[in-house]
């Protein structure tokens, strides 16, 4: 083989990443590669100089890619975003914003929403210290607490957020004694786990390397115009599809018939194909399995072997030299050579990274020009390993360090062998190495010194690259680089044999699927948002082909998104448009927009994602029927808000004239039994069974009459309210409407406080002995509401029921007058300014929220 007779001058420095005082030789731009040193004789200057492919451009036919296949039947959800994970508050004295994981928020959300999971085990442990029944009987033991009275004290309202809220002695004692146990164990144990999980999710959000290499592959068919796309489909990406595609000369690719599919047991992460010695092979990597198929000339896939990777596979590559040979690497740091006939041969194993310490378990392996030599890569570098040599030794091909003038924090994201099998292998010794900043081409005969470096500046992680054959003889080869965010860059790679590889012309960017938005008709906001999210779905695979028969070079490019959509685009090579012609801007053709509309129609027919999780709507206040009824008055909350805004105590005059009320009604026995039954079930960890039973009972015939009776009583008394009070709501399974569409998240609470004639509401008929209770209640009022937003009817229902026994005529207003509930689950902004000030207090006092709470 020829080695370039003269290489570009390069400074060689050894050292760590980001060595700053080295003059970076790659500070030059893409035109640096266009510069050629006059090799032979000065006379040749004039002839050589203008040899520059400035006009080299692949012109896209449409402004954005088009959908190739109708959307799948499974709905898609973008999943966790930065908003879900990061602390949203501000750090006032920072030079620049930083990412801070919002563990507190997540933890408190978890405690609110899944208190049963968080506290039930503890509850079980402390069972003997609690008394669940027989509220009135006094226990001799000091260590036994009556649950019922405790709950009564809590009154259904957490006094968190308000430092002046009233605490009963019982509560105080319980807090002081139980606090360290409950608080510590939950916060330390759960908090640590949660933090770990959040950190993992965050890392994944920043870089999801599972799909490195890409999950989309093009298997050429018998004729150049026909081929197969192989990709995963289905919500879990566990169905491997084989879609035959025809590439008519000059036209858009057409999907032929329905795809064939193979159901797999895990999500497909990487699909690789190669045709070696006339034999087409297909390798698939899942999280813990790798599988190999042979694709017949007719395009049918026959399974050859499946391999289980215990620690998790991170990369698979097919040998370009020997049919059916693969390199597999696992998280444990092992690299194996795998052939269906001979099984596995461990080639390399090192749990440590190559150059310096990096925690990532990501490993990669590929082949080299020598069929028995592999490259082994991790985040810090790439090594050449001889499979026949003594284990563990090898030569570093690429080092994350000063040799390649790497930046600080630079890591290898992808390595790929660019040579391929063929009668005339081109670039048989070149390896592509991608980091988050740059792209390097390294020749395995000259390790450590990159032959070419290009700062790609992609705004997302470049995880796939495809080198295509030259579109016409003597043309530079297109090298496609794809980022996770759908960003695409195309480089023109020239130089073979005796000349060093270089960029022929400046690289270009290609449209990504979010550029296609303009091809779709305008929709109502919700659908538009859905479409936008769908188009923005991260890319997980890239395939490209140049059908050789076309008269004019055409590049067909396919992209697979995480939502399972395959988009394609079509590019023409503009060889030399002349110095003054400008690239014509592509526009949408009627066919393209029609295609998009069809696709959109199918997309909107797919039902939206069911909510991942919905808040439970049951509240112990409703179940604990003995709770005191309140009458709601107008002046109280107002005074309270004013007091809270000013940060002072609530005084008598703030809440107006002392109210009078009748004696507290006796607790109803029914719901109380329900409570203890439920608590008991919760302690024993059989909450789910209880709930099932409960649901069954509530819908069953035995339960119904009682409910109905209550309901008729209610509706007869407050007929105007019955429209709102739907009791079926109270027993229906938990459902929170805001999960259905994430764009509806920052919604104000259901009812804004109406400022209507209710002044005399509690001025009338509140007995003096109830005044204090009422005041206490008022003190906690605006901050209460552990009930999820949007499910107010059962709560308001019960409380108003009790309130209106004595004062039927005011209830309607009372129900409408409930102060705006703070949405604890989402922390969404509440419309009125008072509540937002409450919010501010609440967030300052987040620690208070971690107060021991009973496990449900």
């Amino acid at each position: 083989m020829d080695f370039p007779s003269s290489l570009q001058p390069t400074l060689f420095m050894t050292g760590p990443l980001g060595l700053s005082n080295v003059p970076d030789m790659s500070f030059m731009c893409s035109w640096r590669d266009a510069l050629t040193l006059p090799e032979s004789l000065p006379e040749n200057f004039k002839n050589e100089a203008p040899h520059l492919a400035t006009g080299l451009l692949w012109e896209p036919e449409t402004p954005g890619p088009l959908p190739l296949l109708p959307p799948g039947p499974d709905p898609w959800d973008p999943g966790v975003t930065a908003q879900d994970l990061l602390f949203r508050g501000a750090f006032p004295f920072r030079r620049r914003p930083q990412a801070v994981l919002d563990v507190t928020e997540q933890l408190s959300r978890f405690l609110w929403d899944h208190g049963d999971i968080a506290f039930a085990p503890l509850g079980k442990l402390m069972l003997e210290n609690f008394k669940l029944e027989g509220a009135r009987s006094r226990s001799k033991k000091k260590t036994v607490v009556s649950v019922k009275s405790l709950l009564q004290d809590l009154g259904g309202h957490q006094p968190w957020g308000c430092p002046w809220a009233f605490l009963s002695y019982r509560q105080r004692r319980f807090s002081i004694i139980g606090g360290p146990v409950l608080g510590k164990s939950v916060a330390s144990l759960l908090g640590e786990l949660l933090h770990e999980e959040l950190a993992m999710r965050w890392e994944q959000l920043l870089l999801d390397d599972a799909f490195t290499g890409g999950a989309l592959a093009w298997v050429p068919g018998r004729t150049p115009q026909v081929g197969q796309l192989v990709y995963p489909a289905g919500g879990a990406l566990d169905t491997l599809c084989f879609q035959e595609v025809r590439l008519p000369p000059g036209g858009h690719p057409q999907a032929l018939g329905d795809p064939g599919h193979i159901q797999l047991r895990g999500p497909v992460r990487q699909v690789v194909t190669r045709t070696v010695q006339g034999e087409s092979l297909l390798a698939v990597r899942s999280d813990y399995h790798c599988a190999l198929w042979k694709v017949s000339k007719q395009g049918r896939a026959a399974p050859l072997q499946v391999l289980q990777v215990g620690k998790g596979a991170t990369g698979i590559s097919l040998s370009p030299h020997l049919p059916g040979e693969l390199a597999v690497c696992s998280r444990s740091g092992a690299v194996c050579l795998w052939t269906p006939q001979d099984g596995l041969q461990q080639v390399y194993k090192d749990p440590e990274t190559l150059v310096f310490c990096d925690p990532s378990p990501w490993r990669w392996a590929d082949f080299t020009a020598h069929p028995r030599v592999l490259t082994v890569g991790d985040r810090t570098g790439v090594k050449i390993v001889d499979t026949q040599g003594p284990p563990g030794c090898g030569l570093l091909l690429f080092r994350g360090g000063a040799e390649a003038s790497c930046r600080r924090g630079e890591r290898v994201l992808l390595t790929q062998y660019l040579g391929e099998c063929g009668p005339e292998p081109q670039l048989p010794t070149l390896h592509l190495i991608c980091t988050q900043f740059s792209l390097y081409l390294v020749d395995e005969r000259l390790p450590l010194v990159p032959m070419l470096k290009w700062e790609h500046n992609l705004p997302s992680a470049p995880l796939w690259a495809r080198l295509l054959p030259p579109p016409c003889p003597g043309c530079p080869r297109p090298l496609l680089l794809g980022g996770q965010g759908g960003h695409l860059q195309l480089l023109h790679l020239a130089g073979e044999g005796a000349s060093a590889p270089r960029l022929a012309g400046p690289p270009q960017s290609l449209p990504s699927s979010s550029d296609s938005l303009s091809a779709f008709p305008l929709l109502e906001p919700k659908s538009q948002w859905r479409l936008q999210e769908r188009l923005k779905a991260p890319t997980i695979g890239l395939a490209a082909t140049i059908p050789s028969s076309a008269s004019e070079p055409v590049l067909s490019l396919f992209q697979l998104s995480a939502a399972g959509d395959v988009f394609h685009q079509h590019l023409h090579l503009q060889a030399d448009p002349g110095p003054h012609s400008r690239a014509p801007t592509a526009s949408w053709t009627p066919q393209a927009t029609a295609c998009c509309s069809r696709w959109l129609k199918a997309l909107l027919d797919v039902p939206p994602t069911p909510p991942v999780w919905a808040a439970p709507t049951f509240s112990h206040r409703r179940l604990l029927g003995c709770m005191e009824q309140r009458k709601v008055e107008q002046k109280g909350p107002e005074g309270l808000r004013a007091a809270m805004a000013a940060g002072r105590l609530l005084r008598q005059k703030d809440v107006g004239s002392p109210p009078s009320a009748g004696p507290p009604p006796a607790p109803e026995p029914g719901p109380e039994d329900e409570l203890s039954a439920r608590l008991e079930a919760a302690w024993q960890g059989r909450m789910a069974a209880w709930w099932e039973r409960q649901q069954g009972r509530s819908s069953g015939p035995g339960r119904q009459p009682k409910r109905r009776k209550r309901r008729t009583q209610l509706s007869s008394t407050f007929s105007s309210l019955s429209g709102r009070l739907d009791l079926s709501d109270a027993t229906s399974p938990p459902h929170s409407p805001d999960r259905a569409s994430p764009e509806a998240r920052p919604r104000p609470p259901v009812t804004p406080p109406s400022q209507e004639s209710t002044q005399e509401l509690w001025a009338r008929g509140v007995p003096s002995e109830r005044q204090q209770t009422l005041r206490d209640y008022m003190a906690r009022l605006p901050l209460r509401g552990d009930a999820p937003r949007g499910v107010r009817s059962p709560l308001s229902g019960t409380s108003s029921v009790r309130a209106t026994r004595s004062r039927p005529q005011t209830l309607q207003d009372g129900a409408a007058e409930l102060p705006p509930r703070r949405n604890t689950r989402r922390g969404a902004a509440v419309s009125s300014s008072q509540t937002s000030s409450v919010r501010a207090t609440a967030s300052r006092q987040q620690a208070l929220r971690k107060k021991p709470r009973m496990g449900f």
Partner: protein
Amino acid sequence: MSDFSEELIRPKTEDDQEESCLFSGTGMSFPWLQKHIGTVATGGKKEKDFAQTTNACLSFIQEALLKHQWQQAAEFMHSYFQILEDSDSHKRQAAPEIIWKLGSEILFYHPKSNVETFNTFADRMKNIGVLNYLKISLQHALYLLHHGMLEDANRNLSHAETWRYGEKSSSQEVLINLIQAYKGLLQYYTWSKKKMELSTLDEDDYAYNTASQNMLNHSWKTSVNLCALIQTPGVWDPFVKSYVEMLEFYGDQDGAREVLTNYAYDEKFPSNPNAHIYLYNFLKREKAPREKLISVLKILYQIVPSHKLMLEFHRLLRKSEKEDHHKLGLEVLFGVLDFAGCTKNITAWKYLAKYLRQTLMGNHLAWVQEEWNSRKNWWPGFHFSSFWAKGDWKEDKALACEKALVAGILLGKGCRYFRFISKQDDEVLRKKIKQIKKSVKKHSIVNPGL
């Protein structure tokens, strides 16, 4: 708890120079992290409008460049110059380099740009932010060189060479060395032009004397210029090549040898195959003893066993008297054919077929077996599959015959490649195939007893 998590995520150092990239807990930096934070951060120190517009402008320029819209990029560039007035001193200091990078790229490709525009731009940029003077001068000179304007390039380099700013830092020193080396290269070009002229002149001519005098001057200057750089570790192929050529011309063989030996064997340098090739070619020109040549190529063989010089190496080893050289000769041939790019090298196959026979006749079956043992499980699939038998026969019958012979010797008569070729009926090659069959029968290592 938020403080704890902050610790995990916060950047390792408060390095202000790296505004754009942020680090995660693993020490990896993510250029796209800022985007994620941007969706969340509501407070904190907000970016000023000025910074916002310049940042937006920068991304517009980059986008236009990647879409080859030079005209548009130039228009945006016009607005981007405002960054030179940024109140943030870090940004202001980093600005000239960015402007140079983008500006030179636009001017390099812009259809209406010409050398004059580029010169004006480069000259201005050199004096904005003194720290970039050397870099820009060097690139400017390269640009001129590329456009064939040697004199302008030379003038530029001479200016840059004498430029000093503050304490001479190591990076400045390297850059100055590089500038001097390029100057030396330019002088080499003039020198080699003169040499060409000289070769047309008669030795008795009066002009000859002055011309040769000129050349001597040049050579002396050039050696000064080139010397410093090629001591620094790096890949300096064009400089070393031209320097050695000049030294050789003036009969300084020892100097040339020293330069080349240092370039090839200094451990601080990367293992550049060209360094060994240059040394080998020099020694060959010098008519160095075979031993010497073999020792040079032995090292090249270790670095690049697939190089085309390996066939020459094999010839040298074959001619050598030493037994271990003969053994190495076989190893080298096998080594060449291991590589994907060399599978169609008919010379290598021819050599191997011939040498295998020769080795086996010399009763060195053990050598062949030693080489074959590590290859017997993959060479049959790699070289001797029926796919290649068909393909080779169709494309290159001579190659197929050589390969068939090797396959027959190594794998026996039963091997698919050999069977396929031996079954072919070809008028021209009938005799050859018959010979192959005979050789295989005689030499095959599969059943050596028969």
